[in-house]
């Protein structure tokens, strides 16, 4: 701040971004975008993945320097060169990926975040001060617990408390509820809403959940492909009108209707137990039968054993005890059994779990069949022409956007990597399909296509196990819904009769 300048006014702080343009080489991430966050308001920033939301807030926070455009804080133009400048102006950000140190206690994390950490920390005094600070806050967190031991909801509260502890008056929240149960999300957002109304806090929240925008935000700004697609008061808008602004004129794949009969049990888990990487029990006595022609959804907050369960089914992790049967036979997840039982897998983070990043799209799409005719002669001599023909066909059928079939798959966008995996896993006959967070981080078009493919596989008679952290996705696709908490199945319901509050309660372990 320039010496002699009038200090920033107290009370609520507004932030405006004027004519923001950000180019990375040839790519235009932001194109002349305006954002006006009024002081003392709760503002939502909506947009698909890649719409430029994160780029915009990173420009405001000083992580990026916009190619053109200005940031006004409290009505005054500010040159924000780095995050420290932004912090000094009272701007704070809660990141989508937690920035707490898991191996440290909550108190250590809070003190550490300060700009003036003393050379020697007097813990007795710091704890007293922290307790005094917490007494005036709407949320409570256990100060002496290690962050790795507290729930995702408590971590998110800690992140927010950290910003308030640092006396930030303008908070940017990046998808703050993505790891929370609906109940926790409402609690956290409700408290923040209260602080906006009563304490003069200003909030800019990045989200893609219309429900939260409708319930908590005053105003909304919508971005599409780096451009301003619309803005206004939430009271004047509906979820449909906002969705139209987000997607534009793009045609979405239409999901087929739910048809067909439920068949015999195809995938059966009985008393399955598995450990996590730290050796703790992650999956505990899980039993479940999935029949042909049905989608069983597994709901739960991230980190309740879903990942380990899918890894066991995928053959990436050994079960400690229990058994998995497919079509009545014991299943060890080896290649021969996968082929015989027509097992398909859409794991989470497909680039990491289902692809070899450095190999071409054509090679990756051929993984299931590459050692058999027509791809290979005699089981060892590979016929490159067959790879190419097959890849060309699947690239067209599944609308995979790639420059050539020989491009390394790691160069594709997330949606196109998932489309390539979809092409590999679902183009043949499927009897059992296991999908884990198949749409995480993808745009509407990819999500619609993946949902349609999963429903089509179900309608063709496949038994589908869908593990997801997105309740809307589960409610849309599942026939039956199971809630997983602390490694156990704690609740089961028919999706058609599901009650969101009831599911949320079980997800939180109540």
């Amino acid at each position: 701040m320039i010496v002699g300048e009038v200090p920033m006014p107290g009370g609520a702080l507004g932030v405006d971004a004027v004519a923001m343009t950000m180019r990375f080489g040839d790519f235009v991430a932001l194109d002349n975008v305006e954002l006006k966050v009024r002081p003392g308001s709760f503002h939502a920033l909506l947009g698909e993945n890649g719409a430029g939301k994160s780029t915009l807030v990173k420009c405001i926070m000083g992580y990026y320097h916009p190619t053109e455009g200005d940031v006004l804080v409290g009505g005054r133009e500010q040159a924000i060169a780095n995050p420290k400048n932004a912090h000094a102006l009272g701007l704070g950000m809660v990141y989508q990926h937690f920035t707490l140190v898991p191996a440290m206690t909550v108190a250590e994390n809070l003190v550490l975040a300060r700009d003036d950490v003393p050379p020697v920390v007097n813990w007795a005094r710091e704890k007293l001060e922290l307790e005094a600070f917490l007494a005036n806050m709407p949320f409570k967190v256990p100060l002496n617990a290690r962050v790795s031991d507290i729930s995702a909801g408590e971590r998110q509260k800690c992140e927010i408390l950290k910003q308030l502890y640092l006396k930030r008056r303008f908070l940017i929240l990046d998808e703050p509820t993505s790891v929370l149960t609906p109940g926790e999300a409402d609690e956290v957002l409700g408290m923040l809403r209260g602080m906006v109304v009563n304490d003069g806090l200003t909030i800019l929240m990045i989200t893609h959940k219309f429900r939260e925008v409708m319930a908590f935000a005053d105003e909304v700004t919508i971005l599409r492909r780096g451009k301003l697609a619309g803005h206004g008061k939430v009271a004047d808008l509906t979820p449909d009108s906002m969705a139209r602004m987000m997607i534009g004129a793009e045609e979405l794949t239409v999901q087929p209707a739910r048809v067909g009969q439920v068949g015999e049990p195809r995938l059966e888990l009985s008393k399955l137990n598995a450990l996590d990487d730290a050796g703790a029990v992650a999956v505990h006595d899980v039993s479940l039968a999935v029949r042909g022609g049905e989608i069983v959804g597994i709901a739960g907050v991230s980190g309740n054993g879903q990942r380990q369960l899918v890894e066991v089914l995928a053959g990436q992790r050994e079960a400690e005890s229990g058994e998995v049967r497919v079509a009545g036979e014991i299943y060890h997840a080896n290649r021969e059994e996968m082929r015989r039982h027509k097992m398909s897998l859409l794991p989470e983070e497909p680039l990491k779990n289902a692809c070899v990043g450095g190999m071409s799209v054509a090679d990756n799409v051929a993984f299931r069949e590459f050692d058999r005719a027509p791809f290979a002669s005699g089981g060892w001599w590979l016929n490159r022409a067959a790879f190419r023909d097959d890849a060309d066909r699947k690239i067209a059928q599944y609308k995979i956007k790639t420059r050539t079939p020989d491009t390394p798959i790691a160069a594709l966008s997330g949606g196109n990597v998932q489309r390539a995996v979809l092409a590999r896993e679902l183009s043949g006959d499927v009897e059992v399909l296991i999908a884990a967070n198949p749409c995480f981080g993808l745009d509407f078009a990819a999500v619609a296509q993946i949902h349609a493919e999963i429903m089509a596989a179900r309608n063709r008679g496949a038994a589908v196990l869908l593990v997801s952290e997105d309740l809307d996705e589960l409610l849309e696709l599942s026939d039956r819904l199971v809630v997983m908490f602390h490694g156990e199945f704690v609740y089961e319901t028919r999706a058609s009769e599901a009650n969101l509050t009831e599911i949320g309660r079980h997800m939180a372990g109540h």
Partner: protein
Amino acid sequence: MADGTIGLWTVPLAVFGGAIRVSTPFLFVSLGECITERSGRINLGLEGTLVMGAMSAYGISYLTGSPWLGVLAAGLTGALLGALHAGICSLPRVNDIAVGIALMLFGTGLAFYLGKPLIEPTAPRLPAIDFGWWSDVAQVRAALRINVLFLIGVALAPILYWAFRATRWGLLIRTAGESSDAARAMGYSVLIIRLRATMVGGFLAGIGGSFLSLFYPGSWNEGLSSGQGITAVALVIFARWDPMLCLWASLAFGGAAALGPALQSVGVTSGYHLFNAAPYILTLAIMIITCSPKRTLTGAPAELSITR
């Protein structure tokens, strides 16, 4: 015991004395490596640092006549090698393990080259404090002649334990080692934190080396270190990155290393070389017991290249 011998008691006493003498380099190297690894980097080059430290301590002690200046020189040489390691590792796409192995070979090679003229002369050694003055038995007095460096090392372990918890630098080192994202989001430079942690680690490893050439065995030659540096790096894993456990582990390894000579002194000569291998057998056994391919190590800093 009129003849001043104490029979079979010699063995535990010699192991005790040996534990104190032999453990000192283990202690310094492992505490140094503990600091470096808690910041999220592994420096396997500490074997080279140890030997370079031994050589420079001996040389400076010989040239100046002051063994303590030698210790300081050893520390500074170690810090320099640490800075080299950290500097190379801060370049993009550089693997700290590979750099460490290169520096291990570089450090020992350079020490042998520069140390050639130091094999003949005798340098002033570090003094020891005689804690055995009350006893008439020669073995007791020998076992209780304790070097000041050992005492400094023993004091350093609880100080580090406290510092990791209650000082700004301790918290920053842990943050860099547990979550570089968090450190960056707070506006700290992870590379600078790691540079300093690796330099301090090198400083302590260099001092560990000075103990070898200036106290026990107390001369400079090319066979001075028998892998203490690299064993100490393994010891940090066994000690779960806890400075206090590093102290106990160093003592255990020192005791194991003193077993062979102790048995020999009472006439058990069969299997002498086998007993000399005791620390290495201990290393292997501990690693097999404490490590599992199915789970990650508890207490391991999350940013280490071996745990990520």
